[in-house]
């Protein structure tokens, strides 16, 4: 190993260092990652009992889903209940996105230091948004179904809160990152806080906000699939119905139909959002 002869050491302190131990953050972080996985994955009181072996064994059993895939019942896609389910999903998603989008815009503005008139409002709105975001749509749905009965309304309300959570979060992040120049010049010209927001902040965030609202429509379409399981309307009621009865030949057909619909909406939405940004 003399291919690279060392130069005479002219600078002091050039001794080879010993290999240092890994940095504490990396060490504890990796241990935490593995530890958490073991604790939460193990089969004991506080773990869910994850076992690849069990899953492998289960794969060998009779599989009604594969059976359903083999005998797909496409005609079910044309049945009135399924069509009505799709229609209702669309209606719920559209109403919730529009109403949620309207409410989310001020919440997003107030969720940022630039957009909020004072620290109190900023902190209050930030916490309010976090609170809304911490409750899953299914829980909103089950609450409103219990409070006002089954149907599309509890579903719309659940998606409404979901929309607020998503749009406010994403939009407030762009409010935080806007160019501060216009804000400063609006203030310098003596504008009030509201005038400043209207002239300096809004024009900068509108394209992003609109794009997030469209994206939320897709999220709502997908989200509506679960709401029917607690009686909150939409295509989820069809899923639940077929699932409960074990009609996998129809269920898988509707799932594929749903996937195609979401896929098409996704493509359209991406095209429109590209135009916006």
């Amino acid at each position: 190993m003399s291919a690279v002869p060392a130069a005479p050491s002219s600078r002091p302190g050039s001794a080879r260092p010993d290999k240092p131990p890994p940095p504490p953050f990396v060490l504890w972080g990796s241990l935490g990652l593995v530890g958490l996985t073991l604790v939460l994955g193990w089969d004991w009181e506080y773990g869910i009992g994850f076992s690849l072996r069990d899953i492998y064994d289960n794969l060998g059993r009779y599989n009604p889903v594969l059976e359903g895939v083999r005998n797909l019942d496409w005609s079910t896609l044309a049945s009135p209940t399924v069509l009505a389910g799709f229609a209702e999903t669309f209606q719920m998603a559209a109403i919730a996105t529009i109403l949620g989008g309207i409410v989310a815009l001020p919440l997003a503005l107030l969720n940022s230091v630039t957009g909020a008139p004072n620290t109190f409002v900023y902190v209050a709105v930030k916490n309010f948004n976090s609170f809304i975001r911490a409750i899953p749509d299914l829980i909103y749905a089950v609450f409103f179904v219990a409070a006002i009965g089954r149907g599309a309304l509890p579903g719309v309300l659940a998606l409404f809160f979901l929309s607020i959570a998503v749009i406010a979060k994403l939009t407030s992040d762009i409010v935080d990152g806007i160019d501060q120049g216009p804000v400063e010049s609006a203030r310098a010209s003596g504008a009030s806080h509201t005038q400043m927001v209207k002239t300096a902040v809004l024009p900068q965030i509108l394209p992003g906000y609109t794009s997030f609202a469209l994206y939320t429509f897709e999220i709502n379409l997908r989200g509506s699939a679960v709401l029917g399981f607690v009686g909150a309307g939409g295509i989820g009621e069809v899923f639940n119905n077929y699932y409960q009865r074990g009609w996998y030949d129809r269920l898988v057909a509707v799932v594929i139909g749903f996937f195609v619909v979401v896929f098409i909406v996704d493509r359209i939405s991406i095209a429109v959002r590209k135009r916006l940004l």
Partner: protein
Amino acid sequence: MARTSTGGMTDAQAQQRSEDIVRPEKPFNRFRWTVTITLLVLFFVTSATVDIELSQLAALPERTLFYLGLMYTPPDVTEAPSAITAMIESLGMAWIGTMIGAVVSFPLAFLAATNLFGKPVVFAARQILNFFRSVPEIVFLILLLPVTGLSPVTVALALGISSIGTLGKLGAEVIEGIEGGPVEAAAAAGGGRLQRIRWAVIPQVIPEIVALWLYRFEINIRNSAVAGAVGAGGIGTLLVRQIGQVREWAAAGTSLAIMVIITLLVDTISGRVRRRIIRGPTRAVDLGANAGEQPEGTGPGAGPKREGPTGSVGGGSFVPV
């Protein structure tokens, strides 16, 4: 001869000029009007046709307040221990699901990055990721249930499968944001593709990718409520039972509060860890033996510098497209 305010021109000249240059009219913004009208029409048509009874809507405020009252006046904490146990189960489903998604999405993210692989490979990988992204958790859940049984493990699998799409897509975006220089250097040293990825790409992206996992964990905690739709355990199932089936409103209030508090607590911790991961260790700069060489970023006023290609995950947001 009076001078006008338009510089040194005479009135006649100014008039001449204003005839030449016509002030533009405010242009008609067709795109904006189309969007507005479409939205209005869409809203009214869907509202008019959707199956909602007005009586239901009218009763909404009063009923909501009434049931919130049942939940919290007075609060009933006797069921708190079972809610905490259920929440831990939810955390377990979310975490194991995230780890499944992380392991499967990791290679896919590289295959979906345009700066590493050719068009056909990237296209195929992206289609796979899109598929996992556009199918909701509940669908994976009900398709898995008959095979792996009504258990938290099945929920974790469903959450894991649906995490693959987002993690892979955002991971690919991180990978596409790397500096190309080190990859060229590895190529110039004779490294093959796997070696270039291992030594020039992975070290650049691993902090952001681990931060994405944590971010997805936060989302999966919320998504784990999907278990409640089929009764597969966790806090979602508990709440669906307490609110929707046995109607123990006071106990449900406590469960809801516990869910919100623990969710926000985990968010806070996870958010801090994510920011720390992306920022990297605080620079312990050793000026050492080489006087006259000032390390970049240690001059006056230089704050902690971001090296990452995308810093957005640190703030907990991503731009979905």
